């Protein structure tokens, strides 16, 4: 029973990280109908920025916030400079740009910080509060941080004017322009937010998987699986889907003997294929009702 609880909570911690990445992916997907394949690499790059800030002696949480801010600005710039020129020129062009971004961020990180694996600190106390034993201190902290992020994102889109305008711009750009919303900037803002949320995921997962340019590869795949499972067009679904993926992946790795930790990533692929075959709209996929 202890093992089960431990693996479940460890799965939830990973699921929270997948959820952040999935949320970033879904945000851009809702506005553009494209999956940003570079989301993971952007998060990795943000983590390196946090790493550099820490190396310059900046206290952890300041480095954390600063890295988020830099990622936000970076995301906005990427949209303005790289993505915007190819916008609406066709799916292939845009996908190629995303893949180009992926390769560029990956090589750039390797070039600046080299490819050796680096340890990354965890900010959480060594002891879990309340005498809880079934979850490690870092995982406990990760669950807390991701909950805070998810809640903040929810409140932003639900209750702020800008959040509402971003949703409107994603749903119907023409109508959004007609009420005076600057749709182009909303897209850029979406990229900035996505980059910042991805940065949280990168910084939270780095102490577990260690810092290296390919650290987000598997995580992006799990995030895609989670987003698809929950419904790629639905942020809440993507979060729930990611949490499910995190837990299932961990439990399968623990209890199904031939899977182990080597084949765990295939669980994500199996999930992706299964969802696409049997329920393409995902578990919580919203069917948009539209009258004409």
């Amino acid at each position, binding site marked *: 029973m202890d093992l089960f609880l431990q693996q479940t909570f460890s799965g939830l911690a990973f699921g929270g990280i997948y959820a952040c990445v999935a949320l970033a992916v879904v945000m851009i997907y809702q506005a553009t109908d494209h999956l940003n394949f570079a989301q993971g690499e952007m998060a990795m790059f943000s983590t390196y920025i946090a790493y550099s800030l820490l190396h310059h002696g900046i206290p952890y949480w300041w480095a954390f916030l600063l890295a988020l801010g830099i990622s936000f600005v970076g995301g906005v710039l990427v949209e303005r400079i790289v993505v915007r020129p190819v916008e609406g020129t066709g799916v292939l062009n845009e996908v190629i740009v995303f893949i180009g971004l992926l390769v560029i961020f990956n090589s750039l990180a390797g070039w600046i910080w080299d490819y050796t694996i680096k340890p990354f600190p965890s900010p959480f106390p060594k002891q879990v509060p309340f005498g809880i034993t079934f979850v490690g201190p870092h995982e406990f902290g990760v669950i807390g941080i991701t909950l805070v992020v998810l809640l903040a994102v929810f409140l932003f889109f639900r209750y702020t004017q800008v959040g*509402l305008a971003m*949703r409107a711009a994603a749903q119907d750009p023409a109508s959004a322009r007609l009420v*005076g919303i*600057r749709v182009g900037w909303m897209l850029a803002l979406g990229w900035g937010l996505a980059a910042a949320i991805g940065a949280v995921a990168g910084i939270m997962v780095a102490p577990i998987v260690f810092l290296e340019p390919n650290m987000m590869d598997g995580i992006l795949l799990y995030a895609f699986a989670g987003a698809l499972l929950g419904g790629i067009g639905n942020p809440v679904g993507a979060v729930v889907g990611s949490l499910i993926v995190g837990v299932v992946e961990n439990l399968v790795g623990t209890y199904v003997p031939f899977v182990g930790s080597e084949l765990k990533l295939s669980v994500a692929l199996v999930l992706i294929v299964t969802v696409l075959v049997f329920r393409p709209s995902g578990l919580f996929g919203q069917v948009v009702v539209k009258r004409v």
Partner: protein
Amino acid sequence: MALLEVSRLEAFYGQTQVLRGLSFRLEEGSVTTILGANGAGKTTTLRAICGMVRTHGELSFDGHAIAGKATETIVRHGIAHVPEGRGTFVRLSAEQNLRLGAYARRDKAAVEEDLERVYGYFPRLRERRGQQAGTLSGGEQQMLAVGRALMMRPRLMLLDEPSFGLAPLLTEELFRILGAISRERQVSMLVVEQNASLALEIADHAYLLETGRIVMSGSAEEIGKDEAVRKAYLGY
């Protein structure tokens, strides 16, 4: 000075030219209607004013040259466009749709007042305020589109087929409300409407559009009496 002044306006979809040198003016506080057959360029005229299609020529609104500007910049001068097909944000609630109309405004208290006023005009929308807008009936969505436009506190409303898909009784109700709005709020209107007799009823001025050119203009009364217009557009 005219509120809206259009001169030698041309509009294009790709290589296809739809408007061929349109010139007209619209006085502050007046209701103007554009009549014409399908494909004459009525919808395109409204879209051209809002910068939604590629244009040549001059457009001046309240002294501002708006030709070639971005849609979101043009509408911030006080132009509200109720588009063909209503342009509902289907996954947001009815009230969120209305509030988005006030997106560019900073006068919070007046926005709340206007929301109440819109609910006053369209009580059905108050009943449905929390409902996902995509699930509203066609008529309710049309009210929502007009309501959203009113939330912008516009000086000019561009209305594209406001009666589209509405039952006759509802259509009359909507036009009665539009007439009241233009009188009480001093909102100018440019109306494109297949139901020409209704449009002429609330309009002060009318233009007749044929294949991208204005072929007749005059007071709504004169145009309504014209024999050719009656035969072609009013059906008697």
